[in-house]
């Protein structure tokens, strides 16, 4: 079980790098769909089959693998967002920063006291690395939709870490968390429509009227 989970987690890290380096919006959305779909398998891989894990896996798959990417694709079509990313920094510096953050996550989680059954798994370092990737995207990307993608990767990182603790999270709370994520993305997409309508662009460097 753990080997499959570790393999999957390594793939998640690869996808992180792919998004950091990719210049196409469409492929970025597809990548987070794949990443979301992959991590939704983790509950079952990490804890075996039970009502709780199956529900969580199905809900996460529907949400992260299908519903949210669909919302984003629809937004791209309706808002006529250009396909290029237009990062604030170049791709190479972002990739280097991403590599450093990933390395730091692995070193940091090595120093944290893990319980025996988790010490051979990659949940903690990959969770933290994914978190860092999302954060990096949030601060280096100029278009509103890429910030949403960054936020989603950030959330994926937390989801991966949360896999260690599924017993602590009752099903009701877990569903609340996922529902909140969906609504958040939904509202973000609506706001994006409005930004486009008001500013005829979704580059957030236009959003600079409010400052001291």
């Amino acid at each position, binding site marked *: 079980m753990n080997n499959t989970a570790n393999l999957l987690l390594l793939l998640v890290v690869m996808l992180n790098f792919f998004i950091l380096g990719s210049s196409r919006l469409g492929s970025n959305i597809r990548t987070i769909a794949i990443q979301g779909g992959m991590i939704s398998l983790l509950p079952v891989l990490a804890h075996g089959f039970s009502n709780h894990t199956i529900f969580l896996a199905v809900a996460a798959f529907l949400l992260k693998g299908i519903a949210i990417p669909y919302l984003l694709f629809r937004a791209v079509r309706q808002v006529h967002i250009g396909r290029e990313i237009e990062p604030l920094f170049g791709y190479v510096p972002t990739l280097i920063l991403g590599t450093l953050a990933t390395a730091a996550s692995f070193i940091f989680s090595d120093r*944290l006291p893990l319980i025996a059954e988790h010490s051979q798994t990659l949940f903690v370092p990959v969770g933290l690395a994914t978190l860092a990737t999302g954060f990096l995207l949030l601060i280096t990307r100029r278009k509103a939709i890429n910030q949403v993608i960054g*936020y989603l990767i950030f959330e994926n990182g*937390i989801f991966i870490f949360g896999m260690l603790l599924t017993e602590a999270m009752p099903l009701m*709370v877990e569903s609340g*968390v996922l529902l909140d994520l969906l609504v*958040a993305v939904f*509202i*973000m997409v609506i*706001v994006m429509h409005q930004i486009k309508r008001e500013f005829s662009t979704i580059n957030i460097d236009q*959003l600079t009227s409010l400052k001291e």
Partner: protein
Amino acid sequence: MENNLITLLLLIPFSGVLLALVLPSNRFRPWLLPIVSMMHLALTFLIIQAGPLSAANGWLGVDALSRLILLIISLLFCGCSFYALGYLRYRLSWGNRVFVSCLLLFLFAMSLATISRHLGILWVAVETTTLASAPLIYFNRNRLSIEATWKYLLLSSVGIALAMLGILFIAYAGLTEGGHVSLQFDDILQGAASFSRPWLRAGFVFLLVGFGTKVGFAPLHTWKPDAYGEAPGVVGALLAGGLTSVAFLALLRTLQIMDAASEAVLAREAFLAMGLISMAFAAVFVVRQPDFKRMLAYSSVEHMGIIAIGVSMGGIATYGAMLHLMNNAMTKGVLFLSSANIHRRFGSKRMDEVRGAITLVPFSSILFLLGFIAITGSPPFGPFISEFTILQGVFSGGHYVTGGLFLFFLAVIFIGMGTTVLSVVFGTPSENAGDKDYRETFATTGMPLLMLLIIFVLGVYLPDSIRQIFVDAAALLEVRA
């Protein structure tokens, strides 16, 4: 009977949301707000009298801190709901289905957050407050409000995601000791003494940053001036008085966990640092602030800092901080609601375009002025008593440097805010500006007046039964050696 109180507290606002979505009439829908809020307030009084409650396997419950915060949000929401009636009358043509249902959802989420005794539910409730309030900020539908909404939504969501990571870290801190993993608050408090330190401390930092973003501690406050400045006044009042109090409650829960784990010193130092930084930032930005609504946002940053400092000191200062939570919420209500009236009359919130408000909107201007006097800690209003109590705690604890800085920041902010407020209220008005047909109504001036009366009463006379609410809340934050 007792569990019914908790159920009703959630059920009433939630049915309000559904009704608001279903009702077809823009004219009658806003009446849901005062109806729901009066029922909510009545329930809150019943809950306060009922003492400790618990429901749903201990996932929901009411302790002294819940009672205090519940009272704050219920009073504030009640005042704001009547004000919203008057406000929505100006905006009939815009439609208000989303606005009213989001306001009620906001009340529901805040109530849920105050009574949750499970960190997961607390998180879901706080995140729901963000989602419910984002459409409210955007109500004015212009470039500036959309920019503010975007920043608010993104920053709060990321902040709250960090808080989730903190919650997971704390759960893991329990797991490493081989204990049964639970996010139920009482279980955590019981087991905290044996939690793994590195995980617990890292979790605390994430929670402080995460919920601190919602509270608006500097330097995590950057969404605040934008959101408060662009949101309708009634939403600003609810954000500055209600949402911040709820988010602060989440921080106080974190503090309780750290106390139980004998990490009180570390946690309190962090609170003190956050508090001082927030006051310093507010002092820098409040001076020469040309926009009077943004000025109120910085004042909110300042007062969250003051409360954090009070909590960090312990003893009598913590009691002062509890008192200040109430005083700050009510005074922010007065300031935001009255400044919204001035804003509407002049069609501007910039100091150079708004002058001599007192001749055009006399009641609102006097309320604004009195609100300013109250918030800067002048007698005879409540914030004077609470700030003085905190200061007394700071000095009696021998923290002279903190006390000195505290006084210095208060003075700078008093002068900074004073310049803006006086220039807005006095002087010769530019007659041709703004909406000449605007008239002050009872709904839009009566409610801030009522809130002003509350802080006036809190400032001159505190009956023992009410005092007990604050004393009990502070007692939960005492460090037991």
